[in-house]
């Protein structure tokens, strides 16, 4: 099963939804979509607008790989579970988001952690890549210990 997370960003992300749905129909993929605020008439995929976090985690656990929007929440779920992640940044210019997501996807891609998908027409090759992709480890998160040390000297 391929899990697609469009996040809870209050803007539609139809570009990715359409690309996934078309390819799923053409190649017969089994796709589950958490579609968020994107209203799209999916013909070949199962979808739910919003999922509780536990349900998202359960889906992440059983999926083969993930196609997600470029938000840190969606990417994190995939990386934390060790699943290959294709990340498609939303474009503020196209009214898909307020924030720029491309920087994060670029940075993570250059570290070998995710597969960036900047043009949805490349989805098919990205998926082929994802089936064999092994994510590199991220730089370690030392922020909790920095905060702990700061609180200690208060």
């Amino acid at each position, binding site marked *: 099963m391929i899990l697609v997370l469009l996040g809870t960003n209050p803007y539609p992300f139809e570009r990715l939804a359409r690309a996934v749905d078309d390819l799923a129909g053409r190649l017969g993929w089994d796709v589950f979509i958490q579609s968020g605020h994107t209203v799209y008439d999916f013909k070949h995929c199962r979808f739910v607008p*919003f999922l*509780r*976090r536990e349900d998202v985690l359960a889906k992440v656990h059983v999926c083969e790989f993930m196609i997600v929007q470029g938000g840190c929440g969606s990417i994190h779920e995939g990386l934390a579970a060790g699943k290959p992640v294709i990340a498609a940044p939303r474009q503020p210019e196209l009214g898909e988001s307020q924030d720029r997501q491309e920087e*994060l996807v670029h940075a993570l891609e250059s570290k070998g952690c995710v597969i960036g998908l900047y043009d949805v027409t490349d989805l098919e090759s990205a998926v082929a890549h994802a089936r064999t992709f092994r994510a590199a480890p991220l730089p370690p998160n030392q922020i909790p210990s*920095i*905060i*702990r040390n700061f609180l200690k000297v208060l």
Partner: protein
Amino acid sequence: MSKKKKGWRTWAPVVVGRYWLFQGMFYMNWIERLHRLAMESLVFLLAWSIFYFFIPGYWRLVWALLIAHTASMVFNGHLFALFKHDLYWFGFYKRWDDFAAYVAGIQQRLHGRPCSGLDRAEVYGSLTRGRFTDSSDLDLRFIAEPGFWNGWRVAHRAFEERLRALFTVFPIDIYMVHSESELTRKMNLAREKPIGIFFAGQSGPPPPFHEAVCPEPEAADRPRPRVLIVCSAGGHLMDVLLATEGVEMDFDIATFRLPHVGIPAGARALHFLIDPHTSLWKFGVNALQSLRLMLKIRPRVVITTGAGIALACALIGKFLGARLIYVEISASVERLSRTGAFLYGYADLFIVQWPELCKQYPRAVYGGCVL
């Protein structure tokens, strides 16, 4: 500073009345007295010019004088030191950590925005003997360099600290001292060896006040700091929760009211604030909600990953003496977010998740990526 007295002199109305009447005017030196009278005159003129339209004759004068003198007591006085130290009514900052943190804040302010003419700042009173009780106040003296304007500037700085202490309910008792002989005359130097908390021309960080008085409590019985986490729902909230994973603290969370936001593990409570987005009107509502929340929780530390929802809480927190920790979201790789860039100057600890940002923002600390 004063010994425990008995009899009618300790009756609250007498104590407050005497303080209202004299306001330490006989204790302070003539420059600080002049500064105080100048401030009072400003309020008097303002009150008088307003009353000009409402109150006839001499009453106008009387009322303006009363108001100016009372305002002087409240805004330029040691009200909470009076309540805590002299009247034993009520007091905040009864925990040593809170008290010492406030003094550290004074040190940081003196260090960060030096006051020209200030030679040094010293703490007197029972603290110098290592005694910290429920009724302790901070006997602080700003020792000015010679010259009228030096004294004036330092007196003004003392006024600023008084005002700040008023709004944070901190029991402070602060005066400007203009010469060594005045210090010897007014302070019991034989019994009290002052604790220096600031020296003009000091290099490096200020001397640690926390250790100068009491031994640091053991890590186990150290109280957990009260923290408010405030940020937008979604990615911002996830980032901040990953950034504080496993940190020992008591935290409340303030975020948007969204149907799919549950209360995260470990949080004491979940509060909701309105999203200001770009509307000034909504920002005003958010600011009022934030003020109410901050006064209710009184956090020692505010932690945020930003977006506009956190601006008011962060700034109110700074005003109330809380520390601000800003964790830039993982999505900011080459540029700070707008909220991050704005709060960069206010944050006591500014953490970024990508090393490129440290070049542009030297105060930022690189902490790795939380993803």
